């Protein structure tokens, strides 16, 4: 038995020492850069949210937990249907501390990869003020048009009702309603954004109402 243990250590000592050394190196690196990485995430959220809610001075995370029961389907492939996640919802406050709207992160599967969005809604959560893209890797020249700030696709979401959205291949993209016109050649990406919004907007609205956070 002791000879087997000796053989094990003789054969694997370098691997064990290297694992400890490299693990330590990664721990030190992560400790050094983790705050900056976290700050980058916060900055990106704040920058996108400020573009959507220009009157907000700061975005305050909620004390209450907003837990969403996901319905499943392609748009939430990353989480799995039937699972629940905690939504990142923040209250947009103006200089005097009044709520001027809401901004929240929502995500789901796109055509090529996961799409992560920042969505803003007005203080009563009746109207969406648009969305910004935190992360996406959609097809260059087609699906990535969802990233264009105030482009044809993003502009359609400004001022629409915070309710279920539908996609159409044809129609008037200037008309402000719940029917969104798809990007030509990127129907899957266009539909994915709608699926993500449909998955998150109404449940978040419901939870905020239940928690008495929305005052009509």
């Amino acid at each position: 038995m002791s000879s087997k243990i000796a053989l094990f250590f003789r054969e694997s000592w370098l691997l064990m020492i290297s694992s400890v050394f490299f693990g330590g190196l990664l721990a030190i690196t992560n400790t050094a850069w983790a705050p900056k990485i976290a700050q980058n995430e916060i900055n990106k959220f704040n920058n996108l949210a400020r573009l959507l809610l220009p009157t907000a001075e700061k975005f305050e995370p909620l004390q209450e937990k907003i837990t969403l029961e996901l319905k499943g389907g392609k748009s939430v492939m990353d989480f799995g249907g039937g699972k629940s996640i905690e939504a990142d919802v923040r209250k947009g406050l103006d200089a005097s501390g009044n709520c001027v709207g809401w901004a929240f992160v929502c995500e789901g599967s796109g055509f090529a990869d996961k799409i992560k969005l920042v969505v803003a809604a007005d203080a009563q959560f009746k109207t969406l003020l648009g969305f910004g893209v935190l992360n996406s890797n959609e097809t260059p020249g087609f699906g990535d048009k969802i990233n264009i700030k105030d482009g044809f696709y993003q502009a359609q979401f400004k001022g629409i009702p915070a309710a279920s959205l539908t996609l159409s291949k044809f129609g008037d993209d200037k008309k402000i309603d719940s029917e969104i016109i798809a990007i030509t050649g990127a129907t899957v990406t266009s539909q994915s954004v709608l699926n993500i919004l449909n998955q998150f907007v109404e449940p978040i609205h419901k939870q905020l109402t239940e928690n008495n956070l929305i005052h009509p």
Partner: protein
Amino acid sequence: MADKQLTVGSTFTAGIWSENPVLRLLLGMCPTLAVTTGVKAALTMGLSVIFVLICSNLVVSLMRNLLKPHLRIMMFTLTIATFVTIADLFLKAYLPDMSAKLGPYIPLIIVNCIIICRAESCASKNGPWISVIDGLAYGIGFTVVLCVLASIREILSTGKIFETVQVMPGGFVPWAGMAMPVGAFVTLGLMLGLVNLVTKKKA
């Protein structure tokens, strides 16, 4: 091969031209095709690969006399994964937009055949100096090809280079296909054909 058989000059030219990882060995095809829609992304990927190649070659070379044959691939992977993770964290901390743009392709450097190929065929058999030069040369060879490919694709797909510098004249109609995978395959195929033509003529 031992140190005395390899010179700095021959190692350097091998990595950049005669054994160019992309054009001659056809290694690292995944990032070559996937991240060459723009020069900035290609350059970032190339610099990340240079960093990982140099560091992993150096470490593997230093521990080459201690490596057991049955554990060497595991040791290579452990070393490479460490430096790739450091490169990934660095990009997330200091170039967050580029990190988001490159998505999974930076972590995927771990399985890039160029890195493990150099660890196996050079660093595990040579001293640290030659191994570092080898890593630098193969990294530069990879980066140059990525940047050339990305320049062609970016100019033809947007009319610009580095996202802002207008190269093509005002009436130029962008070739959307060049930004898509088909553009990468066609351009790389033409580059490989050109290199084969040049090298055959020389022979």
